[in-house]
């Protein structure tokens, strides 16, 4: 395993340190708890928190700032954040209006956020609401699974809720809006190359030189189907069709799309994918309001991408385009 790291167990701590020193004015860090919080003063708003295992950068520590998250709890690589960190995080962001946990649907994340909520309730800490994000159509949403995973569609939830919370909305309304966004977003991804976790040092699953994994998870879990490698037009159509037919998105729907890189795929390939998604939407009479192409929710060095569509209404549109001030940026 060759990575730009020192000791595997220091990876998350050193990354967060790099994040902090690169954004000294806007970002605060509690290293022992891996809590990243915004430093600019804000009042009279619900605190918005997300958290999950690390390894999905920029998700989500890099989305902390005005217009988006008020804090993020970063877990160890691929492991949900710890109970104490979530509890402390909630206390840090609370301004008396309560705290909203935006949690991607994984057993570990749910369990830890649930324990934290119980503890905060017991301690009469801030009022907490939790909204579970589960946009991944690769997983059947049945009693035979842990339910759909939360993947890159979460970015839409953070963005819209972050913007709305700046307007002073209350906890209940924000929770309802977050559910609403979640109900209108669908995603699916695939991998050309598995990721290598620093601790394990070898790929989390095997993929042959002519294979790909469709419906792959964000944590190096194998997906729902292994197939032969296909060219971009076919891969991206598979993903986009699965996403469109699931909600389903329909003719005349207006959408925003995310073409999300999984960490090891260059931006050039993501834009090839974006062009294909545009063609498919055009052919289906779906109008694209805004296109997001970048690495948003990754899986370490995994190669591949996911496609997300969000069905829009006027409020979503308005809240999508408000500015954010977050550490992940170009200039």
């Amino acid at each position, binding site marked *: 395993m060759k990575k730009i790291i020192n000791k595997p167990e220091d990876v998350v701590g050193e990354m967060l340190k790099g994040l902090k020193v690169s954004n000294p004015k806007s970002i605060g860090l509690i290293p022992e708890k891996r809590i990243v919080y915004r430093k600019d003063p804000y009042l009279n708003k619900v605190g918005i928190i997300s958290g999950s295992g690390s390894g999905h950068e920029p998700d989500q520590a890099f989305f902390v700032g005005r217009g988006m998250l008020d804090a993020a709890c970063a877990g160890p690589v691929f492991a949900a954040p710890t109970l104490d960190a979530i509890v402390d995080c909630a206390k840090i962001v609370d301004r008396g209006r309560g705290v909203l946990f935006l949690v991607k649907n994984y*057993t570990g994340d749910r369990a830890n956020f649930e324990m934290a909520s119980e503890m905060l309730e017991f301690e009469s800490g801030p009022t907490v609401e939790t909204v579970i994000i589960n946009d991944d159509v690769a997983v059947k949403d049945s009693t035979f699974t*842990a339910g759909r995973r939360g993947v890159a569609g979460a970015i839409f939830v953070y963005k819209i809720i972050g913007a709305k919370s700046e307007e002073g909305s209350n906890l209940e309304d924000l929770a309802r809006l977050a559910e609403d966004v979640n109900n209108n977003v669908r995603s699916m991804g695939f991998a050309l190359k598995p990721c290598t976790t620093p*601790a394990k040092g070898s790929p989390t699953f095997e993929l042959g030189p002519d294979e790909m994994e469709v419906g792959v998870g964000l*944590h190096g879990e194998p997906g729902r189907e292994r197939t032969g490698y296909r060219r971009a037009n076919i891969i991206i159509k598979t993903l986009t069709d699965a996403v469109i037919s699931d909600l389903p998105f329909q003719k005349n729907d207006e959408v925003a799309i995310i073409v999300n890189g999984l960490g090891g795929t260059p931006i050039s390939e993501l834009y090839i994918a974006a062009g294909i998604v545009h063609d498919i939407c055009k052919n289906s009479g779906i109008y694209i309001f805004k296109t997001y192409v970048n690495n948003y929710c990754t899986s370490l060095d995994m190669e591949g991408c996911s496609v997300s569509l969000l069905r829009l209404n006027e409020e979503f549109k308005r809240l999508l385009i408000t500015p954010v001030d977050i550490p992940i940026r170009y200039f």
Partner: protein
Amino acid sequence: MQSQKEILIGVIEQISRKLIEAEKQLTELDSPLGDADCGVGVKRGFEAVQKIIPQLNSLDLSDILKKVGFTLAYTIGGTSGAMLGTGFIETGKSIEGKDDQNIAIWPDALEDSLAVIKRRGGNTQVGDKTLVDSLEPAVISIRNSVNTGEANMVSILEKALAAAKDGSEKSINMIARKGRASYLGERSVGHRDPGTVIICIMFDAALEYLKSNVNI
């Protein structure tokens, strides 16, 4: 003769040692079914437990268990962090204020704790291919042993371990319906659930400690 507290702390120490040693094994098991972090997380958690061992002596049994549980929940993260943390915390909560000379508090506590674990996982049942597949049979076995008047801890734990191992064995052929492995559907068949191995190692370590350190 050792006090209950000494035995509990000794058992916790032995469990920590054994689970830290099992890092590679757990990671390997968590690769085909999950995200390959189970070993490193459990190791991190029980290394933290090793650090607080000196503080445990001043606590009562209930608080020792809660302290260990919170330490795990504060350091492991992930599903195993929540489940193992919950296991110790809820066991500790259950025996709180109860008569620790009455052996019946233990099956009660384990059942209470198991119930919260199952709720925490989203209503997990035996057969879902999670650590519940080893934990529940072991807890039932302990309940049965105690109910039938068995008082020898080694023999209680030997039976519990056998039940846990049997559950772990069965997990191999199960289709996962909870946790990360459930995303694989039928592809999860053929792999042993790492959580069941954690449970087996815990009972095995407890037994080992009792056999070599306690005059029964």
